[in-house]
């Protein structure tokens, strides 16, 4: 489903690929933001998060058992 962004925040959802083990919980918690590749590792949007997406991004970050996901405020 295409993302419609009305109020970009400047924050990005990012993953530390060294820490990530491809558990895949993020794709369940934030299905509109996170898809998985052929090997089960998350593919994240390159563009900044929209205001409406911040909540689900925060859920995915909190739910990552490897603490690999983070919000990049830069």
């Amino acid at each position, binding site marked *: 489903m295409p993302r419609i962004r009305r109020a970009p925040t400047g924050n990005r959802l990012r993953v530390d690929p060294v820490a990530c083990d491809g558990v895949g919980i993020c794709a369940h918690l934030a299905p509109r933001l996170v898809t998985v*590749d052929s090997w089960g590792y998350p593919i994240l949007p390159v563009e900044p998060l929209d205001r409406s997406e911040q909540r689900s991004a925060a859920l995915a970050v909190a739910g990552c058992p490897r603490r690999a996901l983070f919000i990049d405020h830069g």
Partner: protein
Amino acid sequence: MTSPLTRADLGQRSHPSDPPRPAAPAAIFTAPAAIFTAPAAIFRAPVRFAPLSRTAEPDEGQDRQGVGEHVAAYGPRPDATRQGGPALIAALERSELTGQGGGHFPVATKWRTALAAGGGGTVVANCAEGEPASRKDAALLQRRPHLVLDGLALAAETLGTRRALIWLHEGDRATQSAVARAIAERREQSPLDVAFTVALGPDHYLTGESSAVVRGLNGGSALPSLPRQPAAVAGIGGRPTLVHNAETLAWVALVARTGVMTASPSTGSLVTVVGAGQLAVVEVAPGETFAELINRSSMASSRPAAVLVGGYGGSWLPWAEVAAAAVSDAGLRRLGASLGAGVIAPVAGGHCGLAETSRVLQFLAASSARQCGPCLFGLPALADLFARLSAGRCNEGDLRRLDRYAGQVIGRGACHHPDGAVRLVRSALRTFATDVRRHLADGPCAGAVRPALLPVPDIG
């Protein structure tokens, strides 16, 4: 655009405890033009290596510069303490010098970032040359070690630190002993300008990746990581850290001698030309084209079909596209490629570019740090599909999978290793498009069974 700088801007060493230095020698200011206009500032002749060896082949006169010959050739090293640092950074900016290890990040920007973060910290000469076909750093450290040490000392003085590390592969004995000998020579002459310390990392392709250097020197494993802040801001011990390739530091040493007085100082670059059974380190003059370089390096066929530029994570380009381009990162950017670590591998028509690529891709897959999923799984998947293409056992569906996997791997690692593998795959499919169709229709070509041109070490 800058007003001519005076010698005073370089800063004079005035510590009472410092040994007396010769008054600023005329050589620095009269000789410089030759360094940058003559095609050979560092090496007058190619330095040759056998493919898998890191010991330069002996040649007439064993062209190594000790500290005496070094000072005679280039003049003594200027001082970068106090006012000298800013003048040197401005000269580096005018020279547009970028990181010659492969990243080609502007040197002046890195130094300004480190100073803005408070300075101090550590400077590192990254001499862990991992590219199997590159020998420029080995050639420099074995023949012109004092240029690299000068550059490292200048970086340390500009940053206001005495901590200067030299990062080497533990198995690279020839370069280690060359560096140890150079440091001993300097110590014999006068108290050391900065505290040079040699540090050894494992013999891995990625040991020279800059985040791996910082992680290794911080006491961790020497593997890439995803730093939340650049090393120039928070590197070793959380302090500003400059990690520079050996060649970059050699050019810093030359810019410091000549560029401070020059409106637009230019630097050349060292490249390794890959020929049948030999690697030759050649110094490229500013503006020199690929056609000129291949013509004067007698080892290579004068009209190759294609050239691999950068390194094993570099780009294939058809000879017709690259022949008139300048051998520089800027020249190659216009073609969608990069000078990378300076490897230039021309391949003649009789060789199979797909078979060469396949062997290199196997090496890249085996060289993954195995930390990031997309690299750990994606690179072997790409390598397997490419091996089938090379062997002529590939169908249209495999080609589509190759394309899909490439899109899923690029940009997804902590370091740029997987990106390099994708660059190699995509540029090979484009450059050897005719061969791809032939391999699909008729099976492998005759060139596929010829001996490998690109040296690939045995690993795993």
